């Protein structure tokens, strides 16, 4: 069913009532005697919509329902609540609203860096400025300069929570809705399956817990990435560049996706034939959007007052390293100072290989073989080398076969590579690989048992590795509820084992869409390990002298699982790529025959 577009007045087509929509998804189980039942609970919630109910009704209902869950999670604690002196991410975001609304642009990246100095790219700064302005209209005390540090008030909390929800509904949700619509149409997936996938994507527990529980604005960045993907599907490469620059400009973490985007855009300009004008326009528009992104900050740094402000703050190391000597009163000096200071703030190379306990390769190795004995530069090089090694293959594939349908597995594989091997990884970064992987649910066969099992397993594992973080924020109950709810809706363990049970009665069932025995064993051992870990963590005190034992154990299991998830995404990429080239050769041979 095509979504109704208000602009075009096509004559209404006769609606076809599909008997078995989403042929490769097996959403409806045949119980015999003409009785049908939904394959998993989420299907049953949208059961009434299977005969083609208007998207104009389903979409608002879905958005309201998922919005309620977001708001309910936001009633709980946030990071750094009543933990002076530094508090947490909530205070960081509030503090940025405070400094951006009160200080000239030249001071944004230099003001009192010890107390949550701004270390996100410019778009976050502008976003904070806007929210700070609006919030100050409600109550200026929330964002009073310096005086509001550590301010905690129920009304401020409501305002801040509302800004996350509104930002998400303005960026992430429209992007995901549009992307899924286009992607499912491209993949030949029925609109009903698409709605089901939409709910699954929007209820992804990790996103909700981090943004609406812990407190961050990840969905804005993720939404811009999805918007960029949507533009690629629509063939609007220039818009894709703009949105992706926006994502990078909102949160530097979008770099995890950058190699694939780069390889894809380069591939589009190279294959099937080299297209120089396209390459030039892509390069120009990217540069132009970066320039636009930085323009307000650079304009703010161009006056004499700004240079006076810069004179009192330390010179960014990158500027020091520049071979040229500059006059401190020149306009160019101010501009360079601002630019290098932003880069210095946004990319903290001076920090360690990893922070806290995070489920990636370095932390796992460190547990058994202390990495602190090595020099930081060596570790940085090792990390760079390992990351490059892990992403080179998917990037090469996407460069050689720049197909939009390969983007999701390639993005997942590359971001898993980054998560596992790169420098300065946070446990929250797991949202990045999880997003493209979860979007796979919307593809052809995405809701089949096999893909659902893998995507679901990765998501459950992902939120499980964030449990130590969520526990600190008093988000245990939302963690349990949201993760179990998602698992329940998608029919996954620990709530149901239906996904791993094969139904031999179905003659036409596709073996490739059912999880193999190996998959089942693997997933079950991980689910068991997670449950066992929770029991250990809750009831057994760690041995004296090793207070972090459970957290380390969590990171170790998580790293193992994410490594497997990386391999699965690679395998998915390979098979999809092979499938595409097989289809291409078939088409060619058919053409030759004709």
């Amino acid at each position, binding site marked *: 069913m095509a979504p109704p577009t208000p602009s075009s007045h096509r004559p209404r087509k006769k609606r076809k009532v599909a008997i078995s929509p989403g042929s490769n998804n097996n959403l409806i189980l045949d119980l015999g005697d003409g009785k*049908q*039942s*939904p394959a998993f*609970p989420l299907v*049953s*919630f949208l*059961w*009434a919509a299977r005969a083609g109910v208007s998207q104009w*009704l389903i979409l*608002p*209902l879905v958005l*309201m*329902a998922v*919005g*309620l*869950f977001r*708001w*309910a*999670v*936001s*009633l*709980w604690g946030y990071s750094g609540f009543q933990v002076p002196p530094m508090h947490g991410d909530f205070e960081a975001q509030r503090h940025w609203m405070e400094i951006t609304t009160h200080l000239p642009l030249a001071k944004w990246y230099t003001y009192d860096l010890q107390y949550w100095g701004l270390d996100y790219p410019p778009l976050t700064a502008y976003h904070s400025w806007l929210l700070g302005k609006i919030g100050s209209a409600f109550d200026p005390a929330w964002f009073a300069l310096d005086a509001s540090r550590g301010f905690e008030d*129920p*009304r401020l*909390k*409501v305002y801040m*929570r*509302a800004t996350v*929800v509104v930002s998400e509904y303005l960026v992430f949700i429209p992007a995901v809705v549009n992307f899924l619509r286009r992607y499912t149409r491209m993949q030949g997936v029925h609109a009903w399956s698409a709605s089901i996938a939409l709910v699954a994507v929007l209820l992804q527990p990790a996103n909700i817990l981090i943004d609406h529980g812990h407190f961050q604005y990840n969905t804005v960045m993720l939404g811009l990435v999805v918007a960029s993907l949507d533009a690629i599907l629509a063939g609007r490469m220039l818009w894709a560049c703009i949105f992706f620059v926006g994502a990078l400009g909102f949160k530097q973490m979008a770099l995890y996706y950058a190699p694939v985007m780069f390889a894809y855009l380069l591939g589009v300009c190279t294959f099937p034939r080299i297209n120089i004008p396209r390459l030039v326009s892509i390069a120009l528009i990217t540069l132009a959007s970066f320039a636009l992104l930085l323009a307000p900050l650079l304009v703010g740094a161009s006056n004499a007052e700004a240079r006076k402000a810069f004179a009192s703050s330390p010179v960014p190391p990158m500027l020091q390293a520049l071979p040229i000597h500059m006059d401190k009163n020149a306009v160019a000096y101010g501009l360079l100072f601002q630019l290098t200071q932003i880069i210095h703030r946004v990319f903290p190379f001076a920090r360690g290989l990893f922070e806290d306990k995070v489920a990636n390769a370095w932390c796992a190795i460190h547990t058994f073989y202390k990495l602190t004995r090595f020099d930081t530069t060596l570790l940085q090089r090792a990390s760079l080398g390992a990351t490059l090694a892990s992403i080179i293959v998917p990037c090469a594939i996407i460069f050689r076969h720049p197909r939009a349908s390969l983007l999701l597995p390639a993005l997942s594989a590359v971001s898993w590579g980054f998560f596992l091997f790169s420098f300065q990884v946070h446990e929250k970064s797991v949202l990045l690989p999880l997003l493209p992987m979860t979007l796979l649910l919307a593809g052809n066969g995405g809701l089949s048992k096999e893909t659902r099992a893998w995507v679901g397993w990765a998501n459950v594992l992902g939120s499980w590795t964030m449990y130590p973080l969520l526990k600190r924020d008093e988000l245990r*109950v*939302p963690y349990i*509820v*949201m993760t*179990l*709810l998602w698992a*329940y*809706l998608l029919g996954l363990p620990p709530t149901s084992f239906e996904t791993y049970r094969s139904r031999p009665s179905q003659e036409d069932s596709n073996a490739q869409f059912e999880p193999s025995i190996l998959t089942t064993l693997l997933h079950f051992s991980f689910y068991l390990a997670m449950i066992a870990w929770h029991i250990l963590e809750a009831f057994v005190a760690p041995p004296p002298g090793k207070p972090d034992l459970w957290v380390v154990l969590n990171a170790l299991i998580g790293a193992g699982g994410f490594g497997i998830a990386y391999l699965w995404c690679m395998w998915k990429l390979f098979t999809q790529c092979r499938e595409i080239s097989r289809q291409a050769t078939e088409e060619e041979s058919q053409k030759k025959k004709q």
Partner: protein
Amino acid sequence: MADLYPSLAHCAIVAAAFKVLLFPAYKSTDFEVHRNWLAITHSLPIQEWYYEKSSEWTLDYPPFFAAFEWLMSQAAVYADPAMLIVKNLGYDSWQTVYFQRSTVILTELVLVYALSRFVKSVPLPNRQAAHVASLSILLSPGLLIIDHIHFQYNGFMYGILILSIVLARKQSTLLYSGILFAVLLCMKHIYLYLALAYFVYLLRTYCLSLKSVFRPRFGNIFKLGVGVVGVFAIAFGPFAQWGQLLQLKDRLFPFSRGLCHAYWAPNIWAMYSFADRALISLAPRLGLPVNTSALNSVTRGLVGDTSFAVLPEITKEYTFILTFLFQLVPLVKVWFNPGCWDTFVGAITLCGYASFLFGWHVHEKAILLIIIPFSLIALKDRRYFSAFRPLAVAGHVSLFPLLFTASDFPLKTIYTVLWLVLFLFVFDRVAPVPERPRIFLFDRLSLLYLTISIPLIIYCSLGHQLIFGWDRLEFLPLMFMSSYCALGVVGSWVGFMVVYFTS
């Protein structure tokens, strides 16, 4: 057979997940009321339950509810014994909150069970409609707002009521229906409002022969009599033994309260007060005497004596007589249609209407007394549904003032809008075409009424503050809402009366 998906269990699980997430939401003084009752029943001998007054929230529910609290307090010991100390006023450790909130969710399983019995009791062709109706009750924003945010145990008790209504469907289970309703009365006496319908229905259908009024069935009379009297004896017997009945009466029926509750429930008296307010400015021109001492009483809407400035005073006797009269009217039909279950449920609904609209000191929460029984028959055909529609909007919107914190605003509005859009749409698809033609004008008015709600809600929740600021004329939105809702409830009452007597 039509497929019944999502099933009640699916919805109950997802709804429970949502309700667990609401643990830290706003909780009213009713939370403390119930904590206090847990403490009283746990730590005092039964003789002192109705005399204890350390807290201003004394035990004012009938004995079975007290026993229910006692039962829960046995488990509460393991959650946090400190909540069971009578002197620990206002105690709300997280264990207490988790414990009390989860008891609400768990006891609501009674409602799930009752609804599944209801769906099974309906003949196959209508089963899908019954399924939809029961989902609408299970997911009702009324129950969500009152039970899971505001804090009460309505889901549990409406579960018992529905079970009793379902049991009344078959002649063989009528006795249990009567006994169950007696049990319910001994838990919460607000259900006395519906008792007349039960009395007439049981008398006509169970105690007298279906064919003739003059042939009493003595066996049935005996069974029902013993059952009902037995229930009341168990509940009140011990207190009668200790000579505490008068004290119980004072606790259960505190008639010192005023005509209207703190927030105006959308009933006739709200409209009456509104008219009185409007007349204050007109009175000098019309030459009517104005009672100046009453000028400040109604706008503030405080608990206590509401006095009217222009219109004549309303006494308790008036409200009783009016309630009784309007309850009797629908019961005539029950009397002349013995064994007709639909008429019985209609009569329960109309008794709910009468008591809500004309009762003394009616709570806005009592709207559930109308909505829930009505939901069971709202899908009988489209005429029932069009009478139900304004009630669904007005009834739920009138609950909004119960929650007033900023963080509850999105919860109550979005949940209610979601419920209204979803169920009004689904009801519209499921409700069968009636045998008799519909009343054209009534449908149009009902549509107009629905349309007005959107700008009104926006004005009352946001617009008013933007125009007048946070604290000027703050009673105005409340008054608008109350009058609007009263109009809807009265309109749906009139509409339903017509449908009830013409079908």
